[in-house]
């Protein structure tokens, strides 16, 4: 399994997950920027509450997607978003 940079991810201060009703997709909004998300990424980020671990999130989404294994995808996505400083570890 891909190592994630964070264990218990949460959105960094000043970062918000929101539905863009005009473009009909989720976006992460942060100081002077916006990141368009695909539905899977939006599902992952919606579970980043600082309580769930990356493994919890993967398990929950796997159940939601009929048992498909999603662990690597979740870890990779969170690493990429953590690299941009938009997700951080709740315990860090």
């Amino acid at each position, binding site marked *: 399994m891909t190592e994630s940079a964070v264990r218990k991810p949460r959105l960094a*201060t*000043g970062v918000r997950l929101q539905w863009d009703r005009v473009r009909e997709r989720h976006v992460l909004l942060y100081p002077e920027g*916006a990141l368009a998300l695909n539905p899977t990424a939006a599902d992952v980020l919606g579970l980043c509450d600082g309580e769930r671990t990356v493994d919890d999130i993967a398990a929950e989404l796997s159940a939601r997607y009929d048992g498909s294994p999603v662990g690597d995808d979740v870890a990779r996505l969170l690493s990429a978003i953590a690299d941009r400083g938009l997700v951080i570890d709740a315990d860090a």
Partner: protein
Amino acid sequence: MPTPNPLLLIAELSYSCPLHCPYCSNPLDLGSERRGELLTTEEWVRVIDESAELGVLQLALTGGEPLVRKDVEELSRASAAAGLYSTLVTAGTPFTRKRAEALRAAGLDHVQVSIQDSDPVESDRVAGTGAFARKLEAARLARELGFPLTINVVLHRLNLDRVDEIIELARELGAQRLELANTQYQGWAALNRETLMPTRAQLEAGEQAVARARERLGRRMEILWVLPDYFEEFPKPCMGGWAREAILVNPFGEVLPCQAATTIPGLVFDNVRERSLADIWFESEALERFRGTDWMPEPCRSCPFDRQEIDHGGCRCQALALTGDASATDPVCHLSPHHALIVEARQAGELDDPANELVYRALLPLAGRR
């Protein structure tokens, strides 16, 4: 290509400001009598609501100094209700505890404080007033209240030797972001070009300081380096393209593609008092004028680097200011027939005894002030 919906609303709430920075992006005739009445609170709220319906996600509450208006709290509330991500762009001096707390409660998302230099005396000299200490207080207050904080510093010959110190100051203040914006020579900055123009060596040292700091600080502070376009081979993608990503409403309700577009003769800008923001965005002749690539002259039209969709033709206001023709190729481009104007202007900073006078932004007529 269909016109994309805008992502950013730049709301210039007022041209008034306690500072007098000699590179201000406000128009030179900001005190002109041709201008009408300021938009009311109700009108701004409507503009904010209409912008959200149009697909805007980010709102910049700016000026001049936005906090000269007493209704920024109410506009922040309207922004939050409309789902916009709001940034207050402030000089810092009027960001008192009382107002900061009210703005926080109203749902303002992010605060950007300008600082002119890390050196208090130089910072106040460039601001044209004593403001440095209060700016630091404002930045600390923003952090104390939990706002994400951006520090913005315009760079030029008089402060570029202190990039390390500026980065250290922003870090001490707890900024998440530091925007180092090399001067764009529009408006007031064009009047002060000889004094503000850096040397190439200064720019290179500044860029190296940024690279070292990024290495050292990692994700703790993001450092943006806005390119000094006079020293580049290709023009900047000004505003991300004319009326492409950003829509600007000035204090009087005129809808513009950028801060300086009223300098372009022959363009008539629609007013939010007369039409909806969506109508203006999609149908205004002025916003259509330099949109896309069809308007481009040679050599842009047959650009050997295929940069039409990268540079979006550079800056129209700069083309006008330097060549007298707003539809000319931006002279920053090394392929522009007017590029020698840029090469010559760059020499100002290299002189043994460079200019040192500053023309400060003011509401007074310009004639005879130089």
